[in-house]
């Protein structure tokens, strides 16, 4: 390419340049190797969409780093963008997808899985039928069972061919159990292990009459006679209960349903459109509880932020006064709650607020019996107080920082203009303070809006609101409600929880956007 450079000046740069190139190639090689390996794995599993995405991303990454000049900004952004895609965008999109399904309790997998599990569950051993010793054998038609019944008689059969008696001359026995038969090859232990799924699903009809049941072995040594009282008809896509004659049809909502509305479990996952989003509006009691929880969530976040800000600010202003002695000691004390892990603090508070044995009632209130965490209203006050206790040191820290960054000259100039203490604070310092603090207040609000820990550690959302089936409590925030819907209790309903999570996201996003726009006005002060 370029003519050989002879100036000593540029040599080191060329050297580091070629080292950099080597490092780049090595790193890209690693990335590509991982990508190729991932593609092979994914292709083996048949996940073609993911294969396409991985291939595309790999090509883009290579292009960004290998094509000279063109994509300089992208060189810095690509790693971050890829991680953003995997850990944020994908998760959000997947949650959105789940919100439109009925994924949850009883709707855990695919329809094929559900059918095979339903049939498996309906299969039961014929009462009082004997246990048979078996040996797994094979001939050209497939796997079979060589069966020794309790009387010592031996027969053999396969999935197509019902059990047939064998004469003694045709079999080889060991310790009373037939282990080999003419025309059949006995499987070795290794072969049994390799083909165990086939063996476990092998059903050998007991006789020509299907009602007599079939032999199944679960451990390749013992077999029992089973009957199944559910049969699946592929043509009509129905399950029939052979005992009662009830026909279950695919109801379109991810489960087989009988004519009188009885659902078979397990069902399977299906798309349900906006059903999850509409649920709060359909179930009136739940909808009302949800409105209550939403209002409380707003109140909790706003009051927590407001009170802890006021307390933190007051402390910051006080401890910022140079006339105060031992300021640093007070400052350290004020920051202490921030230094404890909040989980620990919440548990300590749980103990302090115990009605009979808690420090607050016993010592501070002289043996009063205030139900701090079990009365609907007092419990709300308690969680706010604890949250303010946890939150004010942060506000104190940021306010102190912001106060100290306001130049003394501003105060002096105001004094010269005739302003006194309170007026200086209200008209000069506070607005300047808010310029830097307001965004932090907004993020604090968003954090407390989703402050799962404190609620769950202190009250688990309780005390419970009476009169509705769902477990909703007086101190539940939206996020703890979502957790209960998704993970606690029987209802494990990931679809509904995802839908509620999306609603929360929209609320928080809208509030944050509006507030950040408002703070622009403050910045104009500068």
């Amino acid at each position: 390419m370029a003519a050989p450079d002879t100036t000593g000046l540029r040599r080191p740069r060329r050297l580091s340049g070629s080292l950099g190139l080597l490092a780049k190639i090595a790193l890209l090689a690693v990335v590509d190797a991982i990508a190729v390996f991932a593609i092979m794995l994914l292709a083996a599993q048949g996940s073609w969409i993911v294969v396409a995405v991985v291939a595309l991303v790999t090509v883009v990454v290579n292009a960004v780093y290998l094509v000279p000049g063109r994509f300089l900004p992208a060189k810095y952004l690509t790693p971050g963008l890829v991680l953003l895609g995997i850990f944020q965008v994908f998760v959000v999109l997947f949650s959105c997808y789940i919100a439109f399904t009925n994924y949850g309790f009883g709707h855990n997998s695919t329809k094929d899985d559900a059918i095979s599990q339903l049939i498996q569950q309906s299969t039961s051993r014929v009462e009082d039928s004997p246990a048979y010793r078996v040996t797994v054998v094979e001939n050209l038609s497939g796997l079979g069972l060589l069966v020794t019944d309790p009387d010592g008689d031996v027969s053999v059969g396969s999935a197509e061919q019902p059990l047939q008696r064998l004469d003694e001359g045709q079999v080889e026995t060991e310790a009373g159990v037939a282990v080999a038969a003419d025309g059949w090859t006995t499987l070795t232990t290794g072969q049994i292990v390799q083909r165990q799924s086939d063996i476990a699903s092998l059903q050998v009809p007991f006789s020509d009459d299907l009602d007599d049941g079939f032999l199944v072995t679960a451990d390749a040594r013992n077999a029992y006679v089973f009957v199944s009282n559910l049969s699946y008809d592929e043509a009509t896509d129905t399950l029939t209960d052979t005992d009662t004659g009830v026909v279950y049809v695919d109801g379109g909502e991810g489960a087989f349903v009988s004519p009188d509305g009885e659902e078979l479990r397990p069902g399977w996952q299906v798309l349900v459109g906006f059903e999850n989003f509409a649920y709060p509006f359909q179930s009136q009691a739940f909808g009302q509880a949800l409105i209550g929880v939403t209002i409380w969530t707003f109140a909790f976040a706003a009051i927590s932020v407001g009170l802890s800000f006021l307390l933190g600010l007051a402390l910051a202003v006080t401890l910022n006064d140079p006339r105060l002695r031992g300021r640093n000691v007070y400052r350290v004390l004020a920051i202490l709650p921030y230094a404890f892990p909040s989980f620990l603090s919440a548990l300590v508070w749980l103990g302090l607020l115990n009605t009979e044995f808690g420090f607050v009632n016993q010592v501070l209130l002289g043996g009063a019996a205030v139900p701090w965490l079990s009365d609907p209203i007092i419990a709300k006050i308690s969680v706010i107080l604890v949250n303010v206790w946890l939150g004010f040191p942060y506000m104190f820290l940021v306010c102190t920082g912001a106060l100290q960054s306001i130049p003394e000259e501003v105060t002096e100039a105001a004094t010269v203009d005739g302003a006194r203490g309170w007026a200086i604070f209200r008209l000069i310092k506070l607005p300047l303070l808010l310029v830097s603090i307001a965004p932090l207040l907004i993020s604090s609000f968003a954090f407390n809006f989703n402050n799962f820990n404190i609620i769950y550690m202190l009250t688990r959302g309780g005390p419970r609101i009476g009169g509705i089936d769902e477990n909703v409590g007086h101190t539940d925030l939206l996020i703890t409600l979502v957790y209960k819907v998704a993970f606690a209790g029987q209802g494990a309903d990931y679809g509904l929880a995802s839908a509620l999570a999306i609603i929360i996201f929209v609320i928080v996003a809208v509030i944050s956007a509006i507030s950040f726009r408002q703070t622009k006005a403050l910045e104009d002060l500068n």
Partner: protein
Amino acid sequence: MRTGTTGSRRLLQLAAIAATGMTLVACSGGGGDADAGGGEDGGTITVWMDQNRADALGDVIASFEEESGTTVEVVIKEFGDIAGDFVTQAPGGEGPDVVIAPHDALGNLVSNGVVAPIELGDASGDFQDVAIEAMSYDGSVYGVPVSIENLALVRNTALAPEAPATWDDLVATGQAAVASGSAQYPLLVGLDPNTADPYHLYPLQASYGGPLFALNDDGTYDGSDLQIGNEGNLQFAAQLQQWGADGILNLSISQDIAKEQFAAGASPYTITGPWSLAQFDEAGIEYAIDPIPSAGGQSATPLVGVQGFMLSSYSENPIVATQFITDYMASEEAQTAIYEAGDRAPALTAAFEAMPADSPTAAFGEIGADAVPMPNVPEMAAIWDQWGATEAQIIGGQGDPTQLWTSMAEAIQSTIDAG
């Protein structure tokens, strides 16, 4: 810990596949022909269990690996997480072949289609009846039970030398101890201020003849016949409020406080399970295990919890996994090892009878043997919530017991109907 485990598992898997890939490449390159038959390779099964049992079962698992040629990959998880994680991970093919889970999760596991029935054959007679009843759902047995746990009355022998013959005896002795200043509480039952504890209160409820569901002839629950609103239960509700007023039951006494105070000798009696004994032993108090005396006239049977090994319906190694469960986990050696490590009575009758008769675990076991298992219908989760919240309101004196209890029974009925 959970993500760490699955993460490293995946890494292992990747590594294994990579190794296989390389072997294949090497083979095709050299034109050689390796025999895929692989002699005694018994494959690999993955078992999820808790640390305590994994430690106890080390020898049994080693002998299984040796005799079957199968590698057992034990994934350690918190016991309480296993059932939930199993439901979410099994359908993706990432789940285990075998799990240990509590029997009351069975309704949930079956309704989500993640467990497969296991036919124990005649071996089902080798287990305690209550354990097999617990592991049954809809007529099929799902797994091999290993341990049984239940509540009993633990008595501080220094404060109450004689086992109480009746509930009134217990209350009288307890109150006398408080009056004389030798104790602070007549009885300790750990409760939560908002959700009480229906499990710990159930023996008292049962003594009023108030079952939760009607029982089928075979001893399993008839989930369609809710009995919680019946006459006996209403009497129990009224009594609950009385006990709350008398200070026999106290919502401020949490599980932790109850254990701590009993260990400190502050009460002659507590209702608790074998899991508390370690703390009592450590505190060095002398105690005895008694049946809970009847408060309402009928026997005060606790609800029994059974833990057992279950087979995944998604297992790709059903034969080996079944052998592991039915031949090894059901063995006396395994059951005894788990009993010795965990202080829970073993479910296998032979191991149960081999327990030293004077051990506390055996005393708990004797009491549990006559009791009924906790219901395992999936609706139970919602029922516990409603049941406990109402008990807390009644004990706290927040309303008329009959009215509160009746509206709870209606709410539970509607939960069941909706499910």
